[in-house]
């Protein structure tokens, strides 16, 4: 990239877009960044980042007012197109509007940028859909079908991008499943995989489709961000498609489940006494029959679990590995390294289950319902005045203190042991939230 490069980042408030801004801003070769935000506010701390409100789904001006559109298009030298609807359960039309129409608009916008010398479009390794076996970086066209609308519409978007490669300097970075930060596991927005781990922790994930040997591919968020920043600058190669994933460091599915259970036991020792079984690995029809049955008769909690699982877990029944020769070579050249997959996974699990990141209100409510009241009381919710309703007394408050201190990991000073702090589950959750 030239020393005076100017980058437009779409989807700048997203899971990848937001940290990408900081990484790009720290690069000497980048003079300025235009961060296109839509619904979620973009946080821009660096002076070189200018936030503009827009929407790639609207038109070829990306929803910018004409003056802004003209100013941006005349100045930028690069586009990193990160805007997407990443919901696996989005209706097809909604996903298509964001992912296909949005990409078309970005392509049209790019054609009106006289200084533009590169576009990096973020895609997904799962444009391979229900294909199995080894997927090459140059592969795209297939008729194997898709597991969800996200995959299907990212595939359609890639077809638009491939067609536009004839007259535009476009490269596509297909990103694998993104977990949290490689050191802390932290992630701004939890994805289906994070929710699935929570369901497993809570004994709400009975089965998943797939074989124990199926390779599971994922990467840490910080690695993805560093890699994209490099591929969009010194590592750029027009016409390239990169598989930005684990490469040969995938983890067999069975081992991944074992690693998850080990992390539960290591970081939440009290989980052991629940004796929750490892989810069963089943064939896809069995998994789908279970999901259908829950949908027919199950109540909302279980339906929520299967709804999340059913939109991504079937992918595990189509084992595949992503060849990453081109991407790996580029990243080696740029000195972009990543942490081992198993460590990344373990840190993600720790992050997801650590007390300060769990839904404290729900946990206290569960304890009150199941252990304190033994299911004998009528329906209660987080706002129920427990003491006023005669549901708890001073003895039960002692039990609550023990629960909060041992299970939640928060020590309650004597001064806080006053009735008003235990008035309702909501009050307790607000009063005793762990401060990190």
């Amino acid at each position, binding site marked *: 990239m030239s020393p005076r490069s100017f980058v437009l980042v779409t989807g700048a408030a997203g899971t990848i877009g937001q940290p990408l801004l900081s990484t790009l801003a720290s690069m000497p070769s980048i003079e300025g960044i235009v961060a296109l935000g839509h619904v979620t506010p973009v946080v821009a701390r660096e002076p070189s980042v200018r936030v503009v409100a827009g929407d790639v789904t609207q038109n070829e001006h990306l929803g910018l007012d004409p003056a802004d559109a003209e100013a941006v298009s005349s100045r930028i030298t690069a586009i990193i197109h990160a805007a997407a609807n990443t919901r696996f359960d989005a209706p097809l039309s909604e996903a298509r509007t964001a992912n296909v129409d949005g990409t078309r608009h970005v392509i049209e916008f790019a054609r009106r940028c006289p200084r533009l010398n590169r576009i990096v479009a973020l895609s997904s390794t799962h444009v391979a859909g229900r294909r199995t076996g080894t997927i090459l970086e140059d592969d795209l066209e297939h008729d194997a079908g898709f597991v969800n609308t996200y995959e299907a519409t990212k595939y359609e978007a890639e077809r638009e991008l491939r067609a536009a490669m004839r007259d535009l300097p476009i490269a596509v970075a297909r990103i694998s499943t993104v977990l949290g930060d490689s050191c802390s596991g932290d992630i701004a927005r939890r994805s289906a995989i994070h929710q699935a781990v929570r369901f497993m922790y*809570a*004994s*709400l*994930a*009975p*089965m998943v489709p797939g074989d124990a040997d199926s390779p599971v591919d994922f990467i840490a968020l910080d690695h993805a961000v560093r890699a994209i920043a490099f591929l969009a600058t010194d590592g750029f190669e027009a016409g390239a498609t990169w598989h930005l994933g684990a490469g040969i460091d995938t983890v067999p599915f069975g081992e991944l489940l074992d690693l998850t259970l080990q992390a539960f036991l290591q970081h939440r020792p009290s989980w052991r*006494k*629940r*004796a*929750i*079984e*490892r*989810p*069963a690995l*089943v*064939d896809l*029809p*069995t998994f789908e*029959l*279970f999901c259908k*049955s*829950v949908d*027919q*008769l*199950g*109540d909302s*909690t*279980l339906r929520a*679990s299967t709804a999340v699982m059913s939109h991504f877990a079937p992918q595990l029944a189509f084992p595949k590995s992503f060849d990453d020769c081109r991407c790996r070579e580029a990243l080696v050249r740029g000195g972009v390294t990543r942490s081992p997959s198993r460590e990344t996974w373990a840190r993600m699990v720790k992050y997801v289950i650590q007390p300060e990141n769990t839904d404290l209100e729900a946990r206290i409510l*569960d304890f009150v*319902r*199941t*252990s304190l009241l*033994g*299911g004998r009381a009528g329906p209660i919710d987080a706002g129920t005045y427990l003491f006023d309703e005669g549901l708890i007394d001073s003895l039960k408050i002692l039990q609550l203190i023990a629960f909060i201190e041992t299970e939640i990991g928060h020590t309650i000073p004597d001064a806080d042991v006053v009735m008003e702090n235990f008035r309702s589950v909501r009050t307790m959750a607000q009063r005793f939230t762990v401060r990190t």
Partner: protein
Amino acid sequence: MDVSPIGISAIAYALPERTVDLRTLHECGLLDSPVDALAEFGFRCIHVSDRPADELALTALRRLIDEHAIDPESVDALLYAGAIPESHRVAGDGGTLEGFSYPVARLQYECGLINAATIGVAQAGCTGLMSAVALAASHLRATPDARRVICLSADVLPADRKREIIYNVISDGACALLVERDAPRNRIMAHRHVAKGYYWNSPARKNEIVAAYFPTARTIVRDTLTRCGYTADDIALVVPHNVSQRSWQILLPLLGVPPERLFADNIAAKGHVIAADNFINLRDAWDRGRVAAGDRLLLFNFGFGANWACLILQA
């Protein structure tokens, strides 16, 4: 140590004559789920009793003694399993002393089992009768003088109680078994029982129980087969508890058992007879020629608590 084989040599059961279909149950407000969905899950009708549990138990016990010409005085112990608290008391005015009027004692007296020790088996949900069989086998192994034990379960839901429990439709009924040394059939090859107290609060943990049911079932069945040195391929017939056909369609692939090896004849017409299912089905499977001498049979059950149990028999 006595290593003579122990088995279930005789079975008799008593179901109320009155049957009630799903539509009627729905109209009486006794179901939670839509009728069509429960029908799709494999239920059609259930048996409903207007007599208390101990009366049904007495019918089943007399049938067992009469059909198999059992000398009542030859019975060393009587184990009575009931899943719900109401099954462990003889109906009366509910006074304090009546809480000590035990069905098992009444049955012993009515049937003249004068040499039988009486024991109640409770708090094991629908696995109660299977637990009783395992206890009977342990008793026989540990007591050289003892030769035979009768195990019995009986449950009758109170009239105002819902008939659907977590997507399964419940029948009243009783079943009695003769467990003895040198049994000519149904020899006990292995038994395994797993209890998980995390799920003790059934209403509050309903979703977790549904989710835990399948993987834990797979584990316990595998473990029990391993104890015998068997695999799923060695099993000629799975003798189920009568939870929904749908749940068996989901579970069988986890166990590696093809659907034709499930004895599912009774699910639609008899419903889930709480703890008695497996043994009612075992009796019917024999009577209908579905079992041949020497077949290896797998009985699996789940009970609130939560309990998972598996029994492998050689027919």
